[in-house]
């Protein structure tokens, strides 16, 4: 996405017509934009014919946003804020259509997905060693460059230890110092205890997963360990209790689907979609799965037989899923409901 800046390497998705190329080693590189350490292997990856799609690809984003849906009633639901007396507007059909169009545009802005990155490499570079300073101080000094115009990721923050060693500040120290000098709205200096495991459990019991994820985005950087841990725990809890509907029509749904598809835990989500009669979303999910794993059985079968719709789901169910019985039941129920409604 252009707004995120031009990545140094692009993921190329070529249609499965090309022969299978080299597999990319390791899952950690998947969807990472912070990756740029070894420039040498870049060229190899671009040369290989089939590259794994990453989170920021156009096609992937399109599929994810289609699955997320656009429920205006949920996105613009009344929230707790200072109350004003309500305003009533009399509109013609044309004005109503215009207002709906504007609302959809704003909703699309609100549904832009936060980035999915791999964990950042820790910083531990020593810049200088001045043994002469040993014993002069009892505390560490942190020197921060507070030029207003530099981006935070280009800011130099160094620490002078009491032993005289001058080193670069670690990521946690960096985040803390930047929050001290350039405080951001919604971010606290010390992460609140809601992100501890026991408190997370309490919040999940109250079905406030969206709140937790919003707080996480406000508090942590997208490539920090805490951000990734909290997101993964939330997604696991949702998958465990099948509460997918909580995140539908929010900006977190895409991230959750990406997480589940990468770990091949799509069964619960598929059942949920079939039960809610979202067949298009189900096919999008299976297409995404095939994009990420083009060598799996169902992908090959789908390619050979050129299946669509319910048949695609049946093929996927027979080959790749672990909860075959449940998906069959759900499909049966859906077909019966279709038949009865057609009969009526």
């Amino acid at each position: 996405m252009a707004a995120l800046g031009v990545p140094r390497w692009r993921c190329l998705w070529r249609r499965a017509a090309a022969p299978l190329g080299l597999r990319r080693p390791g899952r950690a590189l998947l969807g990472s934009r912070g990756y740029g350490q070894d420039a040498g292997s870049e060229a190899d990856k671009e040369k290989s014919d089939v590259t794994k799609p990453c989170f920021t690809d156009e096609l992937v984003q399109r599929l994810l946003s289609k699955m997320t849906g656009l429920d205006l009633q949920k996105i613009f639901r009344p929230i707790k804020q200072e109350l004003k007396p309500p305003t009533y507007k009399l509109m013609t059909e044309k004005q109503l259509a215009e207002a709906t169009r504007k609302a959809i545009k704003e909703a699309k802005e609100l549904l832009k997905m936060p980035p999915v990155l791999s964990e950042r490499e820790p910083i531990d570079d020593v810049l200088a060693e001045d043994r002469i300073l040993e014993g002069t101080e009892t505390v560490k000094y942190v020197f921060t460059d507070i030029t207003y115009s530099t981006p935070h990721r280009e800011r130099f923050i160094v620490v002078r230890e009491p032993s005289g060693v001058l080193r670069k500040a670690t990521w946690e120290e960096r985040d803390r110092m930047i929050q001290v000098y350039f405080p951001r709205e919604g971010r606290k200096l010390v992460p609140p205890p809601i992100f501890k495991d026991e408190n997370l459990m309490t919040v999940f019991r109250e079905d406030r997963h969206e709140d937790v994820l919003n707080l996480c985005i406000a508090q942590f950087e997208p490539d920090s360990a805490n951000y990734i841990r909290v997101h993964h725990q939330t997604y696991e809890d949702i998958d465990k209790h099948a509460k997918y509907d909580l995140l539908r029509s929010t900006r977190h749904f895409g991230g959750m689907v990406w997480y589940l598809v990468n770990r091949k835990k799509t069964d619960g989500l598929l059942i949920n979609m079939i039960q809610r009669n979202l067949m298009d979303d189900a096919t999008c999910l299976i297409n995404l799965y095939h994009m990420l794993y083009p060598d799996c059985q169902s992908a090959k079968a789908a390619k050979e037989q050129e299946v669509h719709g319910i048949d695609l789901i049946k093929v996927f169910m027979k080959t790749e899923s672990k909860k075959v019985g449940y998906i069959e039941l759900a499909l049966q129920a859906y077909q019966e409901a279709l038949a009865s409604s057609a009969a009526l």
Partner: protein
Amino acid sequence: MAASMGTTLLRRAAGSLPGLALLPRLFWAQAAPAALLLQLQRPLLRVFSTETDPATSAQPVAFDTESCFKEKPWEYLETEEYIERYGDKPVWLGYRRNHKGPIPPQKTRKTCIRGKKIVGNPCPICRDEKLHVDYRNVKLLEQFVCSHTGVTFHPTRTGVCMKQHKHLTQAINQARDHGLLSFRIPLVSLQSEDYTNQHQAVAKTPPAPSLQSQAPWYAWYEWQQPPEKDIARIRRIYKDYLKEETGPA
């Protein structure tokens, strides 16, 4: 007035006399003076009876309940005593401040309890000693936050003293931090940031050659033999004061 006198009397009675465990629980507001005297007389008789052993008698009930509610303050809000007293309504409903004139002062009193003295007409939280403001009893805290706007009520509306209002605000913030109380979270958009981590401020810098080769950072950290000319010059200057030759330090 009479009611508060009743509370202080009861407290003193509870402190001084053992065997108050056998008394039924009294609402501080409803104790009639005659009944009070009766209650006070009963323990006096019990102390001298042969059945109860004053040494092993249980501690007065008042202390037990207070400490029990201190540990788990949310339990008090489930008791029938609380329901009978307050019902579904918030704790502060019906409380009226005493002030001169139609407009109340914009700040309530500083505190209701100074040392052991309690003012007349204490605020809704101070008048009930079983109510503890704690970040864990969310039901009590919710009564002081507007459910429509999410804003904490001003003390002039609820009538609490400034000290309790401060405790309440701290407890509400703590509860929100622990995730026990829901609130509106500001939307933070992450679209205009760059996460490539390529700049040398955050990327790996190769260490300096002297660090890699374990050489000292400055050459003069190690002993450097001075040039012969300087040694000779200094020897010449201090010729008369030189002791016998010592090796280089």
